C-alpha cells in the first residue's frame, strides 16, 4: 500500500481518517452543553494541530533518528513565516508560492546553521543551535527592522499593508490568503441536532499538507537513509569505521527537518498573514522538543500526538477560569467548593503550563517512550492474552520440528 508495509500502511490510513474527520471527532459535545468548552474542533485550533504536527514530525526526523537535539528549530519556523509574508506583500495572497518560498528559505538557513552547528555533537550542538536561534530572534526583533532596511518590522511584526505592491493581486480575489481564489477562511458550518461542526478550507490545506509530509516521513524512516541516521545515533564510531561519513547524513537530516519547520512557519503565515519575532524565541524551540519527547521521540505518530496534546492544553486548559471551576464544584458544600477551586486554580487558566509540566514529568518518568509507549502498553493489556496464547502455541510446536 503506497509502498509502505502493512503496519505503516494501516497507521497512515488511520492518520488520514483522523485528520479528515477531525472537525467531527474533536467536537464531541453539543454546543450548548457545559462540556462544550472542551470541544477542540474549531478552525483556529485544528490548523494549529496540523501545523505544529508538521513542525514536530520534521523535528523528529533530526532528533528521533540521529539523536542530535536542536534547540533552535524555531528559527526556521520564523524564517518560513517571514518568507511567506514577504511573498504576500510582494506578489499575491496565493498561499502556494508563499509556502514554497518559505520552505526554500528555511532550507537555505538550515544549510548554513547546520553546517556550522554539526561540527560539534551532544550538548555543544544543542547550544550552538540555541545560540543561532537567539541570534535570529535578535536580528528579527531589532537589527533587521530599521527605517533604512526594514525586513521584519520589529516588534509590530511583519504584515501586509495596502501600500504593498502585491503585483499579482487582482480585483475579485479575497483580501486574505487564498488558494487560487478560495479564501483560507472559507468555512462551512454543519448543524446536526445540538451539535455544530465547522469545516474550514485553511484547516484542510494544512491537513492535506500534513498528510503528504507525514507520508514522506514514513518513507524516510523506513529507507536506507533512515537506517543510516539511526546507525549514527547508535554508534558513530562504527559508522566511521564502516567507511561512511556521518556529516553529510546528519546535515541532510538537519536540512530536511529545517524545511519541515519552514513549511510549518509558512502555513502559520498562510492561515494568518502575520509574522512576529517571538515565533523564533527559544521557548518556541523548547516547545517542539517537548512535543516530540511527550509523544515519543523516534516514533512515527508520537510527535503529532505530542503536538496535539500541547496545543490542546494551551488552548483549552488555559480557558478554564475560576468561574468554570465554581460551576464544576457547585455540588459540594460551600467550604469544600472553595478549597477545591483553590487547589485546582494554579493548574488551569494561566497555569496550564504547570499542568503540562506535571504531565511531562510523569511521561518522562513512567513512559520514557512517550504517549506512544502508553498506547502500546494499553494495547498489550487487551491483546496480552491472545499474544501469550500464540506464544505458547509456537513453543509447543518447536520440539516437533
Amino acid at each position: 500500500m503506497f509502498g509502505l508495509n502493512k503496519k505503516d500502511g494501516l497507521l497512515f490510513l488511520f492518520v488520514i481518517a483522523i485528520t479528515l474527520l477531525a472537525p467531527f471527532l474533536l467536537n464531541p459535545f453539543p454546543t450548548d452543553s457545559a462540556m462544550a468548552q472542551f470541544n477542540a474542533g474549531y478552525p483556529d485550533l485544528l490548523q494549529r494541530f496540523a501545523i505544529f504536527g508538521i513542525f514536530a514530525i520534521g523535528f523528529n526526523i533530526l532528533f528521533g533518528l540521529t539523536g542530535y537535539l536542536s534547540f533552535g528549530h524555531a528559527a526556521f519556523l520564523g524564517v518560513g513565516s517571514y518568507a511567506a509574508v514577504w511573498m504576500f506583500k510582494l506578489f499575491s495572497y496565493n498561499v502556494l508560492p508563499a509556502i514554497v518560498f518559505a520552505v526554500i528559505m528555511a532550507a537555505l538557513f538550515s544549510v548554513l546553521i547546520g553546517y556550522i552547528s554539526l561540527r560539534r555533537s551532544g550538548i555543544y550542538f544543542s547550544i550552538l543551535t540555541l545560540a543561532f536561534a537567539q541570534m535570529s530572534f535578535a536580528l528579527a526583533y531589532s537589527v533587521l527592522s530599521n527605517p533604512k532596511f526594514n525586513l521584519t518590522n520589529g516588534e509590530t511584526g511583519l504584515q501586509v499593508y495596502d501600500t504593498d505592491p502585491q503585483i499579482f493581486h487582482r480585483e475579485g480575489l479575497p483580501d486574505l490568503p487564498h488558494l487560487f481564489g478560495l479564501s483560507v477562511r472559507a468555512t462551512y458550518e454543519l448543524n446536526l441536532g445540538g451539535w455544530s461542526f465547522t469545516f474550514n478550507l485553511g484547516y484542510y490545506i494544512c491537513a492535506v499538507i500534513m498528510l503528504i509530509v507525514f507520508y514522506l516521513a514514513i518513507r524516510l524512516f523506513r529507507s536506507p537513509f533512515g537506517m543510516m541516521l539511526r546507525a549514527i545515533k547508535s554508534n558513530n564510531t562504527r559508522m566511521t569505521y564502516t567507511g561512511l561519513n556521518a556529516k553529510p547524513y546528519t546535515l541532510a537530516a538537519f536540512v530536511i527537518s529545517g524545511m519541515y519547520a519552514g513549511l510549518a512557519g509558512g502555513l502559520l503565515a498562510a492561515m494568518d498573514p502575520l509574522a512576529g519575532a517571538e515565533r523564533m524565541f527559544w521557548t518556541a524551540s523548547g516547545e517542539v522538543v517537548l512535543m516530540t519527547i511527550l509523544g515519543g521521540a523516534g516514533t512515527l505518530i508520537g510527535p503529532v500526538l505530542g503536538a496535539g496534546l500541547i496545543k490542546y492544553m494551551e488552548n483549552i486548559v488555559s480557558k478554564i477560569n475560576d468561574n468554570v471551576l465554581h460551576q464544576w464544584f457547585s455540588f459540594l458544600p460551600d467550604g469544600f467548593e472553595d478549597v477545591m477551586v483553590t487547589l485546582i486554580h494554579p493548574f488551569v487558566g494561566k497555569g496550564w503550563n504547570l499542568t503540562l509540566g506535571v504531565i511531562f514529568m510523569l511521561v518522562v518518568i513512567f513512559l520514557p517512550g512517550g504517549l506512544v509507549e502508553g498506547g502500546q502498553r494499553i494495547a498489550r493489556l487487551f491483546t496480552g492474552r491472545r499474544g501469550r496464547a500464540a506464544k505458547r502455541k509456537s513453543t509447543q510446536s518447536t520440539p516437533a520440528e
Partner: protein
Amino acid sequence: MGILEVKNVSKRFGGLQALGDVNLSVAENSVHAIIGPNGAGKSTLLNVLIGKLIPDTGSVLFEGQSVLGRKPYEINQMGISRVFQTPEIFGDLSVLENMMIPIFAKRDGVFRMHAFENSADEREIVEQAEAMLESLNLADARHDHAAAMSRGNKRRLEIGMCLAQEPKLLLLDEPTAGMARADTNATIDLLKQIKDERDITITIIEHDMHVVFSLAERITVLAQGTPLVEDTPENIKGHPKVREAYLGEHA
C-alpha cells in the same frame, strides 16, 4: 613489498616515546600478529594505521598509498577494516540491519541519499546480509536487537560486518579480550575459516598467546615502542629476547 608498509614511524606523547622508529612490513594474504607487554605501543601503532593518530615521523603505506592524514572512513574505503577491543556494533539496530549497513557502504561509498526506497525492498542487499549471517550462524537472531546478543556473538557480528565490506586488510585489536574460553575458541575458529576461505590479510594485536600461536604466520614483538624481533611463531616461542621482555614484565 608488503600490502602494508610501516617505515620509520615514531610518536611521542609529551615525555613518553610511545613509538620509536617502527618498521613493519605485512605480506599480502598473511596473518601477522603484533604482540608485546603492556605499554609496548601496540595500540598507538594500531591508531596510526587507521588514521586516528598522525605519527611525528615516518610513513604508512597501504598498497603503495599513504594513509597518513586521511579520515578514518577514507582509510576504510581504501580496504582496511577494523575490529575493536570492545565490539563496536549498532546496538539499537537489528542484527540484520547491522549487516546491511557495511554492504550499503561498500556499494554506495561514503554518502548516498537513499531517502525514498524501502530498505526491506533492497532485495539484493538483504539477501547478501542474510547469507553473511547464515555463514556466521547468526541467522536465527537476525531480527533481534544487536545489543541483546552475547559478547561472543557481538564479536562474530562485528567481524562479519568487517568482512561484508570485503576488505583487503582486517585489523583486529585484541579480539578475544574479556571473553570466555569457549567464545575465544569460537572466534579463533572463525578467523581460521576466514583465513582459509578468503584472500585477505589479517593483522592482529593480541595479549593471549594461545590466540596468537593458533593463528599467526608472522609475529612482531614490540617492546617499549620498538620492534624487538620479527619471525615465525616457532622461532618466537624460544627466542631469548622475547622471553626476557615478557619475563621482565612479569618479574
